[in-house]
C-alpha cells in the first residue's frame, strides 16, 4: 500500500532547533526527512508525535515562505507536550499534516487587520503576522494586540521590535499581571482593545487564545462595532485523528479539525454547541 494512503501515518521529522521562548513554552524547529512534501498555509495545524507517548495537534507557527523548517510553539501542559519538551535537538518526532483549513489571507487583501493573540494562542497567529509583513503592501493597517497572563508567558518577544518597526503597523502588548521588570500595559486584552479601539472600517479581526479570552474579545469587538463577518478566529479542541473520524472535536455538526480550525464568527454563531 502506498504510504500516502494511510492518513494516520506520521512522517519522521528531525528537531533541528529548540528555543525557550517563554516559561514552559518552547519553539520547536522541525525538518522533514527524505524531502517529504508539506505544503501548508497560515492557520493550518499538524499532529506531532512524541514516539512512546502519543501525538497531539499543534498550530503551525511558521510560514513556508520564510523557511522550509516547520516551527511549532508548544506549551508544556500534558503528557505529549511534556515528552516533546524533554527532547534534544537531533531527536526524531512524527509529523502528520498539514491539516485543517487556513486563514483567508487572499480574501482579506487590501483590508486593515487586527490580530489578537492570547498566550500560546499567539502561535498560529505568527504566520498571519509574518505573511502580512512579508507582503506589506497587500494589506492596510496592521494592529497587533498581544497578551499573556504574565510577562514570562509572552511569546515571540524577540520579534516585537521588528513587528513594531514595520510600516503602518502597531504592536500593543499587555499582561494580566505584571512583575517588577514589567513597564508595559497591565490588564486584560479586552481592556487593551478598548483603549486601542481599532476602527472597524474596512477591517478584519483575527483572534486566537483560550476560549474565555475569545468569548470576551468578541464581545468587546462588537462594542467597537465590528460585524460578525469581520471576525475570524481559530479554535482549539481535543483531537485524536485530525481527519474527521475520531469524533472528538465536534461543535455541533462541525469538526474543528476539518471544517476549521479557522472560522468566521458568523459560522461560530450558528454552531449548536458553544465553543466555551
Amino acid at each position, binding site marked *: *500500500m502506498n504510504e500516502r*494512503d*494511510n*492518513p*494516520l*501515518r*506520521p512522517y*519522521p521529522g*528531525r528537531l533541528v532547533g529548540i528555543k525557550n521562548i517563554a516559561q514552559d513554552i518552547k519553539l520547536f524547529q522541525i525538518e522533514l526527512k527524505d524531502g517529504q512534501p508539506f505544503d501548508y498555509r497560515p492557520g493550518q495545524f499538524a499532529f506531532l*508525535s*512524541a*514516539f*512512546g*507517548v*502519543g*501525538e*497531539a495537534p499543534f498550530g503551525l507557527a511558521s510560514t513556508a515562505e520564510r523557511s522550509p523548517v516547520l516551527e511549532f510553539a508548544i506549551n508544556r*501542559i*500534558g503528557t505529549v*507536550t511534556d515528552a516533546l519538551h524533554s527532547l534534544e535537538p*537531533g*531527536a*526524531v518526532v*512524527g509529523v502528520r499534516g498539514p491539516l485543517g483549513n487556513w486563514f483567508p489571507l487572499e480574501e482579506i487583501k487590501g483590508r486593515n487587520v487586527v490580530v489578537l493573540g492570547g498566550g500560546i494562542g499567539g502561535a498560529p497567529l505568527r504566520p498571519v503576522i509574518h505573511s502580512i509583513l512579508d507582503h506589506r503592501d497587500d494589506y492596510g493597517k496592521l494592529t497587533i494586540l498581544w497578551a499573556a497572563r504574565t510577562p514570562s508567558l509572552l511569546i515571540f518577544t524577540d520579534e516585537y521590535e521588528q513587528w513594531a518597526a514595520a510600516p503602518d503597523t502597531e504592536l500593543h502588548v499587555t499582561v494580566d499581571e505584571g512583575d517588577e521588570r514589567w513597564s508595559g500595559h497591565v490588564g486584560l486584552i479586552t481592556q487593551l482593545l478598548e483603549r486601542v479601539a481599532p476602527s472597524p472600517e474596512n477591517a478584519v479581526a483575527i483572534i486566537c487564545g*483560550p*476560549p474565555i479570552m475569545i468569548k470576551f474579545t468578541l464581545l468587546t469587538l462588537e462594542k467597537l462595532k465590528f460585524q460578525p463577518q469581520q471576525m475570524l478566529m481559530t479554535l*482549539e*479542541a*481535543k483531537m*485524536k*485523528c485530525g*481527519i*474527521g*473520524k*475520531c*469524533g*472528538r472535536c*465536534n*461543535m*455541533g*455538526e462541525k*469538526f474543528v479539525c476539518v471544517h476549521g480550525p479557522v472560522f468566521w464568527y458568523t459560522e461560530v454563531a450558528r454552531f*449548536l*454547541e*458553544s*465553543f*466555551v
Partner: protein
Amino acid sequence: MKLTSREQLAAWLDALMERATVIAPRQVECGGGSGTHLLLYQPVASSAEVVFDFQRTAMSPKGYFLPSTEVLFEIEKRSNEVTLDEALPQDEQVLFAIRPCDARGLRVLDALLVEHEPADAYYAQRRRNTTLVGLACPHLWPECFCTAIGGAPDDSADVDIMLYEVDGGYLVSEITEKGTALLAGLNAEETDQPAPVSDRSGPSVPVLAPEAWPALFNELYWARLSDRCLSCHACTYVCPTCRCFDVRDYTRAAGPNGIHIERLRSWDSCMAAAYRRIAGGHNPRPSKMHRLRNRYYCKFNYCPQDFGAVACVGCGRCIAVCPVGIDITEMLGEVAALAATLEERGKGKG
C-alpha cells in the same frame, strides 16, 4: 436462489474455516457456570459452535472492522532513528449470520470512515477482506425498530449473501460477486422459491427529520432525560454505528538496540466525562446532559449533515443494555412530540 439444508450449510462453513476466519454468533458462558449466557460474534473453530437461531447478539459486529483495540503502527526507536511499520490487517474474514441492521450499521461506518476522505486505511482494509453472510430476521425482536428507521428485517442491501430460514433449510441469495465466489462449494439446489417476506410490523417510532433537531437543542428536555444517565459507555460500545476512538503509544519493550513502541487505537465514548476535556482542564461538554444530547444529535442531526446518513439502524441494543432504562425510541417519540408542541406554540404567536 438456492436452497440448502442446515447440515449442508454447516459443512460449507466447516470447509470455509480452512481458508478464512469465520466469525459467527456463539454462546458464551458467564460467571463460571452460574447459568447465564451471552451471545457474541466470535471466531469459531467448528460449525458446531455456531448458533443459528437467535435474536440479536449482545455486541454489534463492528469490532471486526473497527476493533476495540488495534495496533496502528509498530515503531522501533533507536537513539535518533525511528522506523514505523503499518500493522494493516491481512486476514480474510467471513462474518456469518450478520443481521440486516448490523450490515446497515457498516454502511453508516463506511460513509464516515471510507467515503468521507481521507479513508481510514485499517477499517477499509478489513471491509475489503470481509465477506458478509446475512441472515434475515423473520420479524422484529423485542427492542427492535429497524423499520422505523428505513431498514427491514429482511433487507439484503448491505450483505454479500443473504440467508432466509425456510422449511427444510435456508434459501441462499447471492447479492454480490464476492458472495457468489464465497458460495463455491456449498451443496445446494437451484430453486424458484421466492425469498420469504419478513413480518415488518414493529413499534411506530417517529424519527424527526435532521433539519428539525436544532430548534430543540436548548430545551430543558435534555437535562431531564439525562438525569438518569450514568455516563457509562455501554450504549456507545454496543452500538453498530458509534465509532469514536482514542490513540496512544505504548512502550512494549526496551533493550540495548532501542525501544519497541506500539501506537494503539481503542474505542472511546462521547459519554465519558473527560472525552472533551483538554490539557489545561477546559471542558466544553461538562455535564452528562451535554454528552447525552450530543450523542443523539450526532446520530440524528450531525451525521446526516456530515456523512449523509442517520447514524442509527434500530438494532435496539442501546435500549437492552442501558442499566437505567434510557430508551432511544422513547426519546424519539418525545422529541417528535416536543417539536410538534413548539411548532404549535410558534403558530400561536405568529
